[in-house]
């Protein structure tokens, strides 16, 4: 793993019925994914509100990944479709506020798609690494680096 990756944090909201199980499977399969990711188990991505994403950025996330079931396969029928619309709405807010909307992304996986999930996580971490740390965290990170050096 690129050492630069350690400088960023990606919060991944994972649906209990698919992505969270896929992350579990990834562990069983010994699949590696970057340690920058903090997985938050959610009962369904439809439970996620717009403010959850914004609060994640406010509280230090450099990127937010929402991982829900494949479209048409939601355990609660259309929770993932609700989440998709909310993610798009939150991206508008991020853009207006001065953050890159690419820092928030939704992906769809099934509980058997461990490899795809790890690929999505790697891709998200790479995207966020290219964008750099969130401007909300830059001052804090600089302080931490100064203390270390």
């Amino acid at each position, binding site marked *: 793993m690129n050492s630069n990756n350690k400088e960023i944090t990606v919060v991944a909201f994972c649906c209990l019925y698919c992505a969270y199980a896929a992350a579990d499977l990834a562990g069983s399969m010994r699949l590696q994914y970057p340690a920058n990711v903090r997985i938050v188990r959610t009962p369904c991505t439809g439970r996620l*509100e*717009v*403010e959850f994403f*914004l*609060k994640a*950025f*406010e509280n230090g996330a450099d990127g937010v990944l929402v991982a829900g079931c494949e479209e048409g396969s939601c355990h609660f029928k259309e929770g993932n479709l609700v989440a998709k619309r909310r993610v798009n709405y939150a991206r508008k*807010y*991020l853009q*207006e*506020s*001065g*953050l890159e909307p690419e820092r928030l992304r939704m992906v769809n996986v099934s509980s058997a798609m461990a490899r795809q999930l790890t690929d999505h996580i790697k891709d998200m971490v790479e995207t966020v690494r290219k964008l750099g740390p*969130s*401007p*909300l965290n830059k001052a804090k990170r600089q302080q931490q680096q100064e203390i270390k050096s």
Partner: protein
Amino acid sequence: MIVAERKTIPEIVDIIKGHKNILVLGCGTCVTVCLAGGEREVSIMASALRIASRAQNLGFKVSELTIERQCDNIFIEQAAEAIEKADAVLSLGCGAGVQAIAERFAKKPVYAGLNTKFLGILEERGTWTEKCAQCGDCVLADYGGICPVTRCAKHLLNGPCGGSREDRCEVNPNRACAWQLIYKRLKDIGQLDRLEKISMPKQWGTSLSGGPRVIIREDHRI
């Protein structure tokens, strides 16, 4: 209900620039129902403004509060302490709410975070449509409960313009022709004879053209 829509973050940032402590004040009535200024929207707006402040180094702090009704002094009092602490208030109430807050706190800058749009209803999930133009002289009884003043693009009171296609308005094909709806409705309720009456030119003196309107109920005055 009153239907409103949020202003964009850059617009709001431009409005509140120069203030250090901003209170985002929501309203629990109409704007909550139209998803523009209730508790949830206040939380989202406050979060987005905090992100904007930190991302763009604007240096303002944001607090949030939602009261039951911004257009009523009894409820405004519940926000008095929070408003006093803030440098400025960003109201997510309708235009009436913003002005009620500003009148109560004479020395506090109060800004509108929403664009108040119209008086309407929730047509379907996520869609609100205008139903009443508040003309002050309701004519709904003559038109089967469908308002030609609001819903006909040309505000015609004596029949359709002749430009509609199928049942669509020629001004906007996405909109139903109000006169088609009026005819169907009057037919359904057996009152087509109402259309034989010629409506005289409407008295617009009861509308906003004469300045803000006041209603006084002597039996309720103290």
